[in-house]
Each structure stands twice: as C-alpha cells, then as structure tokens.
C-alpha cells in the first residue's frame, strides 16, 4: 500500500471502531443506522400496560449515563426517538391523552412535527380515540404507536403526519 491509502485505511479502521464501540445499546441498530442508536426495541421488553414502573434507587449515586456523555439517543433516527420517548413517558402520555392536554402530549406532538395550528385538533383526536389507542390494560408503547399510526392514516387532515 502506498502512504495515502495506508492513512485512509487507518482512518477507516478507526471509524469502524467508533461505530462498534458506542455508548449505550449496541447491536440492535435499526436500518437507518445512526451510530450509537439501538434504543429501538430493547428498552421496552417486559414493560406493558398503561405503565407503572419499578421504583429505582433513592441515592444520587445512580447516574443515568454511567460513565460519560451519551451518544445514545442523540444519534437515533426519528422513529427510535419517538419510541424511546413514548416508552419512557408512557403513563404521563396516557394521562395527557385522556385529558386532551399536557406537557408530555405537547412534546410528543412536536416529535410528530404536528404544526401549531393542528395541535388542538390533534389533542382532541387522541382524546376522543383514547380507548382505541389503548385497547387493553396491557397495551404496550409499541402497540399504542401502531394504533396511532392507523388513526392518523384514517384521518384526512392528519394523514400527512402518519409515519411509515
């Protein structure tokens, strides 16, 4: 190899190392792979229902990002971000949807890029269809999102927000 291809090879090797050793979840990266994402399905295994979470420890010793600054969610595609947010805020989101208003619902809507002008109608839509979005006591975050997709697709005004 000549000098410059050696340098290129080295740079590529380093990039591969960066991709492989990313902070946070490894391995289940989604098709639109961003380095370090992998939140996708892993987070919500075993959690179901209008969720109640297991209590965590009470000391400040629990650092959420144990060693260092996260690559994690920063590099996720939109779908994974929505899934992660929904799973982590499931009961707050459900409560907001039932009320038709709230901070979690507003943040959720912004993840769907709902335009400000459509916000109020979006809120009403999810409130009116709450039982459809959460058909049972064991509905998971993923299932709720699928139901929401269906709901959006069926609505002429909100079809544009439906994600594939």
């Amino acid at each position, binding site marked *: 190899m000549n000098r410059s291809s050696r340098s290129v090879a080295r740079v590529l090797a380093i990039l591969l190392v*960066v991709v492989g050793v990313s902070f946070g979840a490894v391995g289940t990266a989604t098709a639109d792979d961003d380095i370090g994402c992998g939140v996708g399905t892993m987070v919500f295994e075993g959690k179901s229902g209008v969720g109640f979470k297991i209590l965590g420890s009470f000391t400040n010793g629990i650092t959420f990002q144990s060693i260092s600054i996260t690559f994690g969610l920063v590099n996720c595609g939109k779908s994974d971000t929505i899934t992660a947010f929904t799973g982590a805020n499931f*009961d707050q989101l459900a409560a907001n949807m039932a009320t038709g208003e709230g901070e979690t619902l507003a943040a959720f809507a912004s993840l769907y890029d709902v335009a400000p002008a459509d916000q109020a109608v979006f809120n009403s839509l999810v409130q009116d269809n709450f039982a459809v979005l959460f058909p049972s006591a064991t509905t998971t975050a993923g299932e709720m999102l699928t139901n929401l997709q269906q709901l959006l697709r069926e609505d002429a005004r909100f079809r544009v927000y439906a994600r594939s």
Partner: protein
Amino acid sequence: MLSVHDDARASDRPRIAIAATVYQQELVLRAVALDLANDPQWQALVHYDARLLGSTRSQAEAKRFFTAPSGQTDPAAELAATIAAFFELLPRAGEDDAPQCMFVARFAWLDAVLGFDPERLPRLACPNFERWRAGIGGRRLTLVFPEAFISSPASMFGHTLLRLDDGEERPELLGYAIDFSGEMGDDGVAEYLVKGFTGFYPGFFAVGPWYEKLERYADWENRDLWEYPLDLDPAEVEFIVKHLWELRGISFPYYFLDENCSYQLLGLLEVARPDARLRDEFPITVIPVDTVRALAAAGWVRDARYRPSPATKLRVDAAALSAPHRRLAREIARGLVAPGSEEVAALAPRERAIVLSVAYEALRFDFLSRTGDDAEARRRSRSILVARSQVGREVKGDPLAGSVPVPRLPPEQGHGTARVSLTGGWRDGDGYLEAGFRGALHDFMDPQDGHPRSSQVQVLDTRVRFIPESTHVRLEQLTVLDIVSLPPQSEFFRRVAWKASTGLSTRLVRESPRPAHRGFDPEPVFRTNGGAGLAFELGGRALAYGFGDATLDAGRALENDVSFGPGATAGVYVDLFADVARTHFFGGITRFAVGDRTTWIRGGIEQRVSVGRRTALQFRGQVNRQDGDEWYEAGMAASFYF
C-alpha cells in the same frame, strides 16, 4: 517490523513536521508572552484549583485530560503541550478523536486569542463532536434545583443540575440534563457517607434525556422543582457545551461536603465567565441552595419557575375538592367505585373531569410508592382514563392545569443556611447566656418560607453556655445530625412520620444527696434518639404530630454510664400571620428503664417571630418533672441567618 502506525508517522514526519514545529514554537512563544497559562480562562478550562494556596493542581483525575505528563500541576506545560497536540492529525492510542477534536473548547479559545493560521495548523473535521453537538442542540441553559429530599443522604440538602434547551422550537421535555454525580455503585448508606466525605468516589459529568431526570425527581422522589433560566448568551452556552464534550469520561473526586454536584456545576458554568469566580464563595462546604444564591447574586439568574411534583399536585387538588367528591375520588382510585358508575355519571361534567383526574393522580401516586407490577392497578388506571377521555366531549382542556399555587418564596430567598443565635435565659434557678451556631440547615421554628414544609434537617448545631453565677462555661449541645420528617396524613397520603438525631446533649442528673445542692446538675451525655409517628395538618394553619421513640444516653455522669428507654412526644405547630409568627406547644415523656433509671416528663411552648428575612426572635419555656422533682427553664433568643 514496524506497525502501520509507526511507519506512516515516520514517513510523514520529514514533509509536514518541520514546518509544524516552527509554527508551533511561534504559537507557544506568543502564548507565553501573553501569559495565557495564568489566564483565568485557561485555569477554568483545565479545572485548576483556585482554592489551594501555593501550588496549583487540577481537580481532574483522568490522565487523558492532560496533554502534558505534568499537566495536572503545571498550567504552562499543559498549555504548550496542548498547542503541540493540536498539530496531531490522528487520535492518540485509545482515543476516538484527535486532540483538536477532543479539546474543542481549548481549541476555540486559543484560536480566538492567538489566531491560528489554517494553512499552517490544519483545522480537522470533528464528526463525532459535530454529530453530538447537532443532536443535543443548545442555546439556553436552565439551572434546576430539586428541593431537599430527606429520605436520602445524598439529597438531603437538595441538588442542582442543568437543562439544555434548544430555543422555543424544542419543548423542554425533549431537552438534555447535565449533571455531576458520584459513581457510588451499590454501596449502602453507611459506606456512602464515609466514602462520600473522604472523596473516595469518582464523579463524572453526565448528559441524558431531561425527561428521565424529571421522572426520577418529580415522580419517584416526590420533589418539587425550581427552575432558573440562566442569563447566558448563545455563544456562552456554546462554549459550555464544547467544554462538556472535553469532560466526557473525565473523573473528578466527589466530596459530599464540598466538591459535590453543585460545586462542579459552578465549575462548568465558570468556563463561560471565568472572571465570575463563583466558587470562591465556598471555602469549606457547598450546599446546593447556596450555589443558587451565588448565581442570583452574580446576576446570572433571571427568574424562578416552580414545578410541583405529582405528590404536591395531588395534595392540592384533593384538598380543593369537597368532602363527598374527595371520598368519591378515593373510592374510584381504590376500585370500590367504577369510573363508569351512575354515581360518577351523575356529576356535572367539570366535576366529573376533576374527580376522575384526582382519582388517577391518587392511584398513580399510590402505586409509585410501592414496588412491583400490579395488573389490577393497570386495569383500574385504564378504565379511569377511558372515562376521563369521554368527558372530553363536554369539557375541553384540563380544569386542573396550573392548580398548584407558587410558594411564597423560592428556595434561594428562604432564610440563610447558617444560623447564629444569642440567648439569655434561666434554668433550674440559674441564669445563663448562650451563644449558638448551626452549620445547616433548617428546623421547624425557623422561618418556613422557601423551605420544605414538612421536614427539618440540622447539622452541627452547637451551643455554648455561660452561667454567671458560677462563672462556668460549658458546651451545652453539639448536635451532629437531627432529622425530622412530618408528612401530614390525609386520605391520600398515609406516610409515617419519623425522626432521628444524634449528638452531644445535656441532661439534668440528680446528684447523690449534697446538702448545699439544689438537686440537679447538668451533665454532658451523648444522646441518640429515634422514633416514628404520625403528623396531621389542621385547618391549613397547624401541624400536629405524635411520636413513639427511644432514647439512648451515654455519659460518665450516668449510673452504669448509660441510660436507655422508650418515650413519646406530641405537639402542634401553629402559624399566625403567614410566616411572621409560629407557636409550638409540645410535651413528652421518656422512661429511661435501663442503666440510669428515671422518668422525665416535660411540656412547654416555643414562639418565633420573624423580623425581616434574616432575623428572628424566639422564646422558649419548658416545665420538667423528674424523679418527683420539678425544674423550669425559659429563654429568649435572637437568631441571625446568613
């Protein structure tokens, strides 16, 4: 055989290295001429400790934070080596990024001051940093203060962290939390206290989704949050974020008392304004709320926003209901009444919405207080929410939005953490003068505004008494730690009140018959007391409590050097004229049954009147009965908070 790495380096060197070395030396010379090594900005970026007299030492522990071998103790060597490192085109062994892309804030500052020539010092692309930077955004920083949480030693004095927001477009909930905390692993409380005090734990800066922190502090720990948008311009925030990248994986020693979360957070903020020297105000200990005060005094803080925890919201929302509606909400939460029942349907729409919302809040709160999954709770919560969603046809929006009134004072405007008091009084016939100093933090007789309503934490409460009649000076009290939690009981909150205290105290001991003596002598004992009980709020102006407890005294003046026994205390705090005056009626009995045996019954009254924000006057009177004899004490005190 040389590795690929060395081979490439060696062959590159003749062409590039010489020119680089010359320019590098030029830059270093200019840096020396400008004395940049001693510039507050450089000192802040490398976290050189400004508090140690004489020698300089960086608080960062990780070797990779320094480009020079002696970088931890030599700012000039570190500066020269950093400039040299910028010429390196590739990452060092074990690193993902070249030094230019690791030390982005140092590069930005040195570039601004020295004006790097891009022809002679190539500017590298830093894809890892850029991707991270684009992902977390960052135009505004907010200081967040979760109020004190006395159930955990780490949180007893509050906590501070930052939230990074990206302007108006991105909702707060999608922001990122920045904080500094110690890696404590699975250590228990005792180990935590020892290691935390001695700096044994490593601490790291961490960045994570804000909503995770919010859920933890607000939902799981039931802490109200205060948020203070920081008055920094976007360029300053940008610089702080760049520095945060430099701190990735760099450990600092975590000292519970001083170099703790709040201290290091100030250190992070200081890189934006190194002349602010915020940490100079904290020579010994750093209590989180005091760092908020320091930032407010320095003009960094614009205003305070209050975010009540779900527990606070439940308390307020439940109290606002009429008694029948409150009962109904409770029964819905407990599954005794179905959300779709006639009783609920008979309510007016707005009432129905409110009752169902409170029922859900109660159910969720109750469940979060317990561990484990509960299929029944999930089923019940869904049916409540379905019913609530159906009311949406008649009631638009949330009638309970913004229902919690903002407390009169934010935490940084509450009374100061330290207290000095002067008391004149009289006990068992002897007059006395007493000087007291309490290191931290708050008790039920201090002004209440700006502090948590139902807890008391005192650290190092020291009192020295002078008795003129005998010209005797004695250490009356040295409380190491005293904690009391009085969560008011209600239909929705069934929590146990508890207390624990330990420290040096004074006990009146009956001496063996000495003809000239009155009967009791004050003697020092090491007293430990703990108890559990209940507390009740009466009419919103009074807090009543009752405890069963146990007291263990140890001291040479006691028979068998020890005295131990059960007891009970009860009392009520009554507030008058908002926070201006508070009265405390109390009584107690302790039956010391082991060791030095005696029964001590007491009762009395305490009164506090606030004079302005920093001063209070207190009166205390107490009647005591022990071994069939009585003694009385009374005193008037003036307290100053700072």
